[in-house]
């Protein structure tokens, strides 16, 4: 089925053109191929924060070998990485650093929140920690555990691969619903106020 479009420049493209494009045989196959390539070579950024980082290192080591699923290397520079595994508790001081690292990554990028502290604050419900990194960056997969076993991390990783394979429309990303906690007035109530 031919795609007929009157657009000659990118700014002329209409919604109908895009919809027609999505149904096109060639682009869906290309999409599927690109998704397959992306999901099978996700290179995480090194962002080990606390105890979960040790289990992440165990997941990358010999017994639980993460690289057989495609993560051959953990990249030190976020600009060369596809995924951010936030492994560990994010403190108030680290929150802007996390956002900075996330912003430095290039699209497409994914975030896997590893462990209870990264997902929801974990055991520590207090002044010092951000209660869940989804207040700072959009998260694709949450892996529960304190720390999650390397097998649990691999399970989350495989779920992320399924999400990527399902294509861009299928990703149910969390929205960054809460205000940016790095602004001082958004942080904590003054002592004495309710």
């Amino acid at each position, binding site marked *: 089925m031919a795609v007929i479009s009157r657009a000659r420049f990118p700014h002329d493209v209409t919604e109908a053109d895009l919809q027609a494009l999505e149904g096109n045989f060639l682009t869906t196959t290309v999409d599927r191929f690109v998704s397959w390539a992306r999901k099978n070579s996700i290179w995480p950024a090194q962002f080990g924060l606390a*105890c979960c980082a040790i289990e992440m290192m165990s997941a990358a080591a010999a017994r639980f070998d993460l690289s057989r699923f495609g993560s051959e290397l953990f990249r030190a520079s976020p600009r060369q990485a596809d995924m951010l595994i936030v492994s560990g508790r994010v403190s108030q001081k680290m929150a802007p*650093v996390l956002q900075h690292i996330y912003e430095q990554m290039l699209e497409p990028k994914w975030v896997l929140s590893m462990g209870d502290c990264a997902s929801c604050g974990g055991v520590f419900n207090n002044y010092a920690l951000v209660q869940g990194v989804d207040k700072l960056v959009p998260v694709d997969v949450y892996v529960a555990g304190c720390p999650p076993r390397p097998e649990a991390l691999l399970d989350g990783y495989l779920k992320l691969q399924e999400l990527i394979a399902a294509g861009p429309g299928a990703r149910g990303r969390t929205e960054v619903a809460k205000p940016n906690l790095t602004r001082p007035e958004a942080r904590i109530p003054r002592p004495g106020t309710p």
Partner: protein
Amino acid sequence: MSDLTRETLVVNMGPQHPSTHGVLRLILDLEGEVIVGSEPVIGYLHTGFEKEMETRTYHQNIVFPPRIEYLATFIEEQAYVTAVEKLLGITPPKRAEVIRIVLAELSRIASHLVWLGTSAIDLNVSSVFMYCFRDRENILDIFEMVSGQRMMHGYFRIGGLQWDLPAGFVDRVRGFLATLPAHLDEFEALLTDNLIWRQRTEGVAVLTPEDAIRYGCTGPVLRGSGVNYDVRRAFPYGGYDEYDFDVPLGTRGDAFERYRIRMEEMRQSRRIVLQALDRLPDGPIIVDDRKVALPPRRELVRSMEAVIHQFKLVSEGIHPPAGEVYSAVESPRGEKGYYLVSDGSNRPLRVRVRAPSFTNLQALPAMIFRSYVADVVVAIASIDIVLGDVDR
């Protein structure tokens, strides 16, 4: 031509950096490649442990210590539980003490293996990283066998242990320890005789004994400079005075010396564990005091007092006398101390964690002054910091 001016270049290292062993930030003043000033900036992992522990009972607080120093988890639990027992003035039964020592020394070996693996991979010896984690997995299997958890165990209780050892534990540990010396020899063959390793670690990050004492360093950092201070020998706890082991001591205070000390400590830990397994006595695994430990369940059907004690302990917790204690253990990083202040209620008034990595890290600027940027990586690795311990 105008006069040439000299400026130092300020370089930021971290907090996200592959070689800082966690979220440590270093601000380095460089003249070329030579470091003329450095300032570690910490606090990126501050979790508020001490305040959190003031809001829970003594028993609920057992959850937190393994998360502070997450590499030597049983030693951290032992530190907290020993401090509470000192506050109460009780000692756990012999079997519990021996099992605690077995698990603590296995923790020490596991922690040193992580240290060795990550230090090696900083210097690009990635095969040692894989080997160390392979051995560590065997230790974590033993921990999982005992407590159900690989890392954050919650197995030690105030007055003893949570439950007794599973069947086959002793054989499993002996089996692992039988393979350990050969693996340690392999690591030494790969590293100690390796010209590149020696050139990168000998004479690097030197700390004089006077500086080590003045900066409050403890552990292999202090012993590498020649000061013989090990908490297991100086202030024996948990039965350590009955075991026969050597405390390795260095002379030159450089990174290579600390590496040699930690390798030898792994062998000495193995020695301690073998002695402990030989003398593992039978008996109860928790103290008999009903004000401290829950009564055994079969007593609950016979005795009203047991039911009341159970109710009081679960709904309120223990009530240590008002007072304060400082109790320390030897963690792989140095002296890990707990300063507990009690006001007689069921919650501690103050829990202060004396973190060895915090005080050891203060000595880093002295170690790397006038050395090269590449030596900073070796220096940080040789101090063996855990950022959870530094920032708490």
